[in-house]
């Protein structure tokens, strides 16, 4: 059993490695180009670009109404752009619905998680995609339990039992279950909307370690959050949106928080600490 654990992640790893080989000229797994979305007088997004590579965590930050959620909804098929293009692995695509997004390998975990409180962890993970004994046969409960256990173990997630009802789990464990659920469809892109909101520090630590694990599995992750410390901890790149427009792109391994905050706030001059002036 242990030797086969992680079969399903190996495909992802393989893919990531292959993309990694020509990393110098590597192609983004998701590319958003000049996307515009208007709601009446509201310019939710104006000519927005976004690239996400395999094995890369891209953080989206911005004030309320900056367009983060609109962009996430376009990528996950909930909203359609007025103009612009979305490409997946280089191919222009139309993501007409959340189901279409799934089919294209884009999964999203929204803030409300949409878990069923009364159902077990395993039932939630396979909700709507239940494994069956045969095409029209009954649900294969044993296999769903086994697969759920495997997924959670590969994520090194601390959920004591896949049989426990979700209402017995902590907020951090619920987040983990919601993420695990998206992985059953083997996505290439995962969108996480405010995954650490209202979590304790230990739970935040668990979710952030989980994001690192997803990155190591070769997924492209889009992370939306208000907490700059959390984002900067796990992101490779930070994309700032302001009034529906790209307002700056920062390498998380080198950018000072002051620069990012200035971009969010729209400051034209950045008051830099003395040591940060290079």
């Amino acid at each position, binding site marked *: 059993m242990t030797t086969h654990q992680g079969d399903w992640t190996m495909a992802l790893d393989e893919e990531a490695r292959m993309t990694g080989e020509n*990393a*110098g000229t590597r192609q983004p797994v998701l590319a958003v180009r000049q996307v515009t979305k208007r709601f009446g007088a509201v310019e939710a997004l104006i000519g927005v670009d976004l690239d996400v590579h395999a*094995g890369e965590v891209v953080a989206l930050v911005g004030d309320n109404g900056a367009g983060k959620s609109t962009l996430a909804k376009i990528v996950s098929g909930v909203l359609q752009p007025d103009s612009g293009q979305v490409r997946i692995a280089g191919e222009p695509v139309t993501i007409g619905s959340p189901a279409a997004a799934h089919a294209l390998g884009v999964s999203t975990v929204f803030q409300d998680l949409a878990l069923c409180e009364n159902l077990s962890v395993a039932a939630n993970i396979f909700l709507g995609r239940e494994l069956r004994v045969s095409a029209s046969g009954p649900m294969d409960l044993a296999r769903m339990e086994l697969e759920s256990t495997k997924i959670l173990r590969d994520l090194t997630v601390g959920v*004591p039992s896949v049989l*426990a009802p979700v*209402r*017995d789990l902590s907020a951090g464990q619920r987040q983990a279950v919601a993420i695990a659920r998206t992985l059953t469809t083997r996505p290439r892109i995962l969108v996480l909307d405010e995954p650490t909101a209202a979590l304790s520090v*230990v739970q935040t630590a668990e979710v952030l370690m989980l994001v690192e694990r997803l990155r190591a599995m070769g997924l492209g992750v889009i992370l939306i959050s208000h907490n700059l410390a959390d984002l900067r901890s796990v992101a490779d790149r930070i994309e700032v949106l302001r009034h529906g427009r790209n307002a700056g792109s920062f*390498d998380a*391994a080198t950018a000072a928080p002051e620069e990012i905050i200035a971009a969010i706030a729209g400051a034209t001059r950045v008051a830099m600490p003395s040591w940060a002036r290079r």
Partner: protein
Amino acid sequence: MAGSQTALREANRATVLDTIRRYGGLTQVELAAATSLSAATVSSIVRELQGAGAVDVRTTVRNGRRALLVTVLHRTGLVVGVRIGTRHMAMTLADSAQEVLVEQTLPLPHEHRADTSLDRAALLIVELLERVGSSPEELLGIGIGVPAPVDVATGTISVPGILRGWDDVPVGEVMSRRLGVPVFVDNDANLGALAESRLGAARHFQDSVYVRVSHGTGAGVVLGHQLHRGFAGTAGEIGHVQVDASGAVCLCGSRGCLNTVVGVPALIDVLRASRGPLSLRDIVTLASEGDPGCRQVVEDAGATIGGVVAALAISVNPQCVVVGGELAETGETLLAPLREAIRRRVPLNHIAPLEVVGAELGARAEVMGAVLLALEGTTLLTHRVDHPDRDRVPG
């Protein structure tokens, strides 16, 4: 048949104990679910373990219902070992017998600030205590490792500029004020050296050097079983030995320090053109998988570090060099060229050939060192190795 019954029971007992350790504390109902054993079996095993003094059971409330919380029974007195790194904070809660009760890692942002990180550390400690069903009153001390030289008397970083945003922060005092227990602060490589010399690869040697190869490189020196910190805590700071006279200026203000050549930002820079932006974790993974570019960068770093460690080895004549830190997870990729560089430069003696080995405690070395520091500081740990002639190297 009776024999296999006993064996099965043995195995179930081990499963239950392992599961409790993994989660810190679980109710009997959760234990049954987590181990796939029946409620009756779990209940009888827990009773047995309780009788044997291995676990502790107390009433708690889950979802508004009364439940029995099972935790590993620990000796009186808990300590926390913390390693504050460049991009991660690792924490271990242990008892006075150095039994690890629960562990947690938290990713940290680039150039994290002392106020935010220490705030999170304090909250993490309180939450971990809760998780094992203990109260803050049971906490007796905290050990903290930081990636910079430390004045252990004040718990403050002693060389400015090396850890940005942490200069002049009395780390020990800040944490001690929040949690009301003594806090001991030391350099991370020193703590790795302490742990490896007490519990790990160097435990049979009286004089050893621990080299920590991570975002930066540092060393801890153990002489006669005791950590040698130097007056200002800068002993073993090999990351600031000059290796390139015309190199870049380092955070410390000197030119061409070892860290400017083999520090992670330098490694990432030389790989960027061909491999794209990588993290330290990516470099370790790719090098371990055999990626030629990453391997070469790690090998070259090993050779450069080996040259500097050779000079340190000539100065202090250790019996053993232990190599730890994230980059050491690549195994012989780092270790072989590092060992070779030392062998080429350190004169062989007939008494004790210098061993160069990987850290036995692995990624845990520094947090375990912090645990030991806290235990020794609070005099909970009376065991000290004080037989200078006990462990002559065999052969």
